[in-house]
C-alpha cells in the first residue's frame, strides 16, 4: 500500500481521499489483510509481497495481533454526583517471562492526585500543562484509588500483603505503585488470577483524568500490573509528564451508569442492559490493547461516521460537549485524514473503532490524551477557523494509536519514541492535509506550518537535555516538551536531508510493522532507520539523540573583489565592468558544536550557479572563485531542510539588501507603540 501519494497541499486533498480510496480499495484491502497478519512476519513486507501474502494467509487473520499477557475483566459502577467508581476486577496474568514470578507490581495511578505524591511534587517543582509551581492546592483535585480487597486464586486474601514501593524517587508518600508477593511463585507459562475490589475517587480535572461538571473522564482508573521487561519488572510511579507502559491483552469491562449518561469507551460495545434502578450497564470488549479508558456525560452529543481503510470499516464516534458542535466537522476531517495517511504511510489501523472525546469547558486539561482506540481532543466555543488546534490535537492523539498504542514503547524511559515520533508524523500528516505552510495557523494575515512550529518549540530550550533521557529527569517540563516533542520531530525532519523523506517514511513503516504490539527500544528504532537507509547514522544519532549539541552553520562572509584591484576601475563603462575579473570569497563557519554536512549554493550575477558540499567538521571553510561575475547570493541549506539549525537567518547572504522584511516588522511595531501611547494618553 506504500507508494506514490495522492497529495495536494490543500484542504481539498482530503475531500478527494474518499474517491481515491475507491480506486485503490481492492489493492489496499488485499495488502491490508496481509499486514493484519503482521506478527507472523518478522519484518515488514514490500507492497507486492503483502499483496501476495494476503491471499495465502487470509485464514490467519483471526489470530491475535499481540502476545496477550493480561486479561482484565472489570465491573464498574459510576456515581456521577460524587464522581466515584466502585469496581471489581479480575486480572488473569500469563507468565511469559520465562522464569518463575512471585512478586507483582501494580499501578494505582489515581493516587497521584494527592499533594504529597511524586506527581504533585514534580508539578510544584517544574510545572506541567496548565499547572505551574505557583498552582494552589484545591481539595477538589484530590483523587484516589483504594484497593478494598485483593485475592489471588489459590492463595486467598492477600490484601494485607500489599506494599507501596517507590522505584523512581524513594518518595515514601507516593502511593502510585504497590507490589504483592505471592506465597509461592507462578511457574513459567502458568497463569495467575487476581481478584481486586477497589474504589476510585476521581479528581476534579487538574490533568489528564477526572471530572468537570457532569463530565467524567475515567483514565488510569484500575489496578494495572507492571511489565516484565529487560529481565525485570518495569512499573514506574506516576509522573508529571509520563504515565504509560503496559502489556497487551484483552479487556472485558462492564460499566454501570445512570440511563441518561452517554458513554464512550476504548472497546466495542457488546451489549447494553437497562437496570431496574434507573441505571444501564454497558459491556465492552477490547483486545490487543494495553489499556482501557472511558468517559460519561449526559451532555455529550454523539456524532457518528465511518471510514474505510485497508483493514475494513472503522466506526468513528465523536462525543461533543455543549457549545462545541462547530468543531465537530473539523475533528472529523482531521481524524479521517489521519486515518487515511497513517494507513497509507505507516501501516494499517487494525481496530474497527475510534472514539474522540471533546472535553467540556473546565475540563480542557483532560484533553489531548491518548488511550487505545479512545482519544481526547480540545476546542473552545470561539475557536478561530485559522487556528488549527482542534485539528492538530486530533491528529496527534490519533497518531498515538500507532506510536504508543500499537508500538508500545516505554514512555517513562524513552518518551521520545511515542511523543517524538508522533510529533514528526503529526508534521507530515498535518502538512499533507492542511498545507506545508499553513498546517498550524492559517489566517490571511499570518500563517505557520507544523515544521516550523516544532522547530520553534525545540529552540525554546535546545541544549539542556538530550532526547534520550528518562522523562522525569528533565530539568523542567518545558525542556521535556521542547526536546521530547519539538527536538525529536525536528531531528527526524533534518534526517530527511540525510536519507531522504521517502526512505524515512519507509523506515517508519518498517519499524511499525516489525514492532507493533511489542515494546521496542530507542535502539530498535534507530537501527531500523539505519537498516532501511543502508547508512551508518551513528554520527548523527550520537549528537542529535544522545547529545545536547546545537547545530548552527553560518555564512560568515561572501563578497567579490576585482582581481586587479590596484588598477583604476573603469567607471561608467558597462562593457569594461562586464570584462572585469572578480575574485569571490565565500566563508562558511560552524558556530555550534553539532557537526553536519553542509550544502552551499552560490549564485553569480551572470546567472551562473555553483554548488559546494562541505563535511562541516572543521570550524570554517572558505571557497574562492575567479570569474567575470560578482556574487549575487550564497546560501547554506537552500531548501531549508536542516531544521535543527538554530539560526536560519545567518545561513545566507544576498548581495542586494532587501529591507522589506524589516519595514514590515517596523510598521507593526510602530503601530503597536503608537496605539499603546494613545491608550495610555486616555488617562490624561
Amino acid at each position, binding site marked *: 500500500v506504500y507508494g506514490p501519494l495522492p497529495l495536494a497541499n490543500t484542504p481539498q486533498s482530503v475531500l478527494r481521499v474518499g474517491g481515491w480510496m475507491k480506486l485503490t480499495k481492492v489493492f489496499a484491502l488485499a495488502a491490508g489483510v496481509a499486514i493484519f497478519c503482521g506478527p507472523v512476519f518478522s519484518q515488514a513486507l514490500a507492497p507486492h509481497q503483502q499483496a501476495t501474502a494476503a491471499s495465502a494467509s487470509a485464514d490467519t487473520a483471526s489470530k491475535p495481533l499481540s502476545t496477550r499477557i493480561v486479561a482484565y475483566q472489570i465491573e464498574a459502577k459510576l456515581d456521577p454526583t460524587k464522581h466515584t467508581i466502585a469496581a471489581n476486577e479480575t486480572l488473569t496474568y500469563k507468565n511469559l517471562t520465562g522464569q518463575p514470578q512471585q512478586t507483582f507490581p501494580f499501578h494505582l495511578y489515581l493516587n497521584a492526585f494527592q499533594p504529597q505524591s511524586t506527581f504533585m511534587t514534580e508539578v510544584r517543582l517544574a510545572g506541567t500543562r496548565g499547572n505551574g509551581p505557583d498552582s494552589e492546592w484545591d481539595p477538589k483535585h484530590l483523587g484516589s484509588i483504594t484497593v478494598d480487597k485483593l485475592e489471588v486464586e489459590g492463595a486467598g486474601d492477600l490484601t494485607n500483603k500489599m506494599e507501596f514501593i517507590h522505584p523512581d524517587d524513594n518518595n515514601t508518600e507516593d502511593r502510585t505503585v504497590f507490589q504483592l508477593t505471592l506465597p509461592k511463585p507462578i511457574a513459567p507459562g502458568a497463569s495467575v488470577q487476581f481478584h481486586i475490589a477497589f474504589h476510585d475517587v476521581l479528581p476534579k480535572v487538574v490533568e489528564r483524568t477526572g471530572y468537570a461538571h457532569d463530565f467524567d473522564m475515567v483514565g488510569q482508573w484500575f489496578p494495572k500490573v507492571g511489565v516484565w521487561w529487560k529481565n525485570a519488572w518495569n512499573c514506574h510511579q506516576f509522573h508529571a509528564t509520563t504515565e504509560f507502559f503496559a502489556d497487551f491483552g484483552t479487556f472485558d469491562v462492564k460499566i454501570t451508569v445512570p440511563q441518561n449518561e452517554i458513554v464512550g469507551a476504548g472497546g466495542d460495545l457488546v451489549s447494553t442492559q437497562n437496570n431496574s434502578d434507573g441505571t444501564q450497564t454497558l459491556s465492552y470488549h477490547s483486545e490487543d490493547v494495553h489499556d482501557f479508558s472511558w468517559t460519561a456525560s449526559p451532555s455529550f452529543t454523539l456524532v457518528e461516521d465511518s471510514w474505510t481503510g485497508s483493514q475494513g470499516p472503522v466506526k468513528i464516534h465523536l462525543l461533543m460537549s455543549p457549545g462545541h458542535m462547530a468543531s465537530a466537522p473539523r475533528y472529523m476531517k482531521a481524524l479521517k485524514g489521519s486515518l487515511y495517511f497513517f494507513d497509507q504511510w505507516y501501516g494499517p489501523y487494525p481496530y474497527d473503532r475510534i472514539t474522540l472525546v471533546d472535553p467540556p469547558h473546565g475540563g480542557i486539561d483532560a484533553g489531548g490524551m491518548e488511550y487505545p482506540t479512545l482519544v481526547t481532543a480540545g476546542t473552545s466555543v470561539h475557536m478561530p477557523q485559522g487556528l488549527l488546534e482542534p485539528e492538530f490535537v486530533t491528529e496527534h492523539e490519533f497518531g498515538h494509536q500507532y506510536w504508543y498504542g500499537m508500538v508500545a514503547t516505554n514512555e517513562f524511559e524513552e518518551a521520545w519514541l511515542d511523543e517524538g515520533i508522533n510529533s514528526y508524523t503529526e508534521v507530515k500528516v498535518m502538512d499533507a492535509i492542511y498545507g506545508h505552510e499553513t498546517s498550524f495557523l492559517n489566517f490571511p494575515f499570518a500563517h505557520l506550518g507544523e515544521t516550523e512550529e516544532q522547530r520553534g518549540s525545540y529552540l525554546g530550550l535546545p541544549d539542556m537535555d538530550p532526547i534520550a533521557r528518562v522523562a522525569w529527569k528533565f530539568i523542567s517540563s518545558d525542556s521535556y516538551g521542547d526536546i521530547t516533542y519539538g527536538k525529536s520531530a525536528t531531528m527526524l525532519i533534518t534526517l530527511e536531508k540525510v536519507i531522504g523523506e521517502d526512505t524515512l517514511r519507509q523506515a517508519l513503516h518498517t519499524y511499525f510493522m516489525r514492532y507493533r504490539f511489542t515494546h521496542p527500544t530507542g535502539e530498535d528504532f534507530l537501527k531500523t532507520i539505519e537498516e532501511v537507509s543502508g547508512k551508518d547514522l551513528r554520527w548523527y544519532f550520537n549528537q542529535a539523540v544522545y547529545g545536547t549539541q546545537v547545530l548552527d552553520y553560518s555564512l560568515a562572509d561572501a563578497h567579490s573583489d576585482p582581481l586587479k584591484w590596484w588598477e583604476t576601475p573603469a567607471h561608467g563603462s558597462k562593457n569594461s565592468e562586464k570584462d572585469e575579473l572578480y575574485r569571490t570569497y565565500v566563508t562558511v563557519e560552524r558556530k555550534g558544536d553539532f557537526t553536519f554536512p553542509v550544502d552551499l549554493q552560490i549564485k553569480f550575477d551572470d546567472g551562473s550557479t555553483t554548488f559546494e558540499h562541505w563535511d562541516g567538521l572543521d570550524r570554517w571553510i572558505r571557497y574562492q572563485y575567479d570569474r567575470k561575475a560578482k556574487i549575487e547570493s550564497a546560501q547554506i541549506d537552500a531548501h531549508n531542510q536542516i531544521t535543527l539549525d538554530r539560526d536560519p537567518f545567518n545561513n545566507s547572504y544576498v548581495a542586494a*539588501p*532587501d529591507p*522589506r522584511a*524589516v519595514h514590515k516588522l517596523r510598521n507593526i*511595531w*510602530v503601530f503597536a*507603540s503608537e*496605539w499603546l*501611547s494613545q491608550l495610555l494618553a486616555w488617562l490624561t
Partner: protein
Amino acid sequence: MAASNRGTFFSGAGLVWQWQRLVWWIFAVCLIFGFFSTHEMTERANFLLDHSAAAQRLVNGFDVSAIIMLQQLRDSPLEIHGPNILHFSVLFVVFMLFATGGILAAYVLDEKPTTTAFFEAAGRHFWRFFRLLIYLAIVLLPIAGLAVATSAMHTRIDDQSISPYTGDYFVEAAAIVILLLLIVVRVWFDMAQVIAVADDEKKMHHALRRAFGLLRHNFFALFWIYLRISIITWVLFALGLYIWMFRLSPRSNVAAFLVSQLMILIWLGTRLWQRASEAIWYRNYQANQVPEPAWTPSPAPMYTPVAAEPQA
C-alpha cells in the same frame, strides 16, 4: 436637548477640522516616538535580515515562524522592543499631559492656537492636569477592583456552570458595565479640565466638584456626546484593522503603513473631537445660563388680621 447635542457633535468636528494643525502636530509627535521606540530593534533587524534569504518569509506574507526564530536568537531584536515601547509610551503620556492645556485653550476660547498661546496654556495647566491625573488614579481604583472581582466571579461561574456560555456572557456584560463606568469617569474628568481652562480654575478639587455637578444634571447629554464619538472611533478602527489584516496584499508595506497610520490618526482625531465637543457644550451651557438677578428686597408680607375666636 437633542438639537443642541447635534449641533455640538458637528461643531466639535468643525472645531477639530478648523484647528487641525493640533491633530497633525500631536500625530507627528506620536509617530516620531513610535519610530524612536523601534529604532534599536530596527537596527538589529536590519543587520540580521537585510541580506538574509530567510527574511523572505516576512516579505511574501507573514510567516509567524520568522518571528519565533527571531525571538529565539541570542541577540533577538525583539527582546528589547517591549521595554522601549513602554518607555516612549510613557513619554507620550507626559507630552499629552502637557499638550492638553493648549488644546483645550484653543477649543474653549475658539482662538487660533498660535505657538505662543499654545505653549503658554499648556504650561499653565500642566501641574493642574497632573493633579487631576492623581485624582483619576484614585477614582479608577474601585473600577480596577470591580475588574478583579469580575475575573474572580467569572472563574467561579465558569467552574459551576455546565454551559460554556454563562461565564462568557457574564464577562461580556461586566466588560460593558466597566467600559461605561470608565466613560463616565472620563467625561467627568474631561469636564473638569474644560472648567479648569475655561474658568481658569486653579483648585482641581473645585473643578472636579463643579464637573460632577454638571455631569449629574446633564448626564445623558454629556455621556452621549462622548459615547457616540467613541462608537465612531471603534467602528473605524475595526474597519482599519480588517482592511490591514484581510484586504491588503501581504507584500504591501506602503499601503499597510498608510492604513495603520490612518487608524492612529482616527484614534487621535476622534479623541480631540470629544474634547472639542465637550468644550463647545460647556461654552453653550455657560451662554445659556440665565444670569442670577441682582438682589432686590422682597415685598413685605401682607398680613390679614384674624379676629380672635371668642373664648367660651
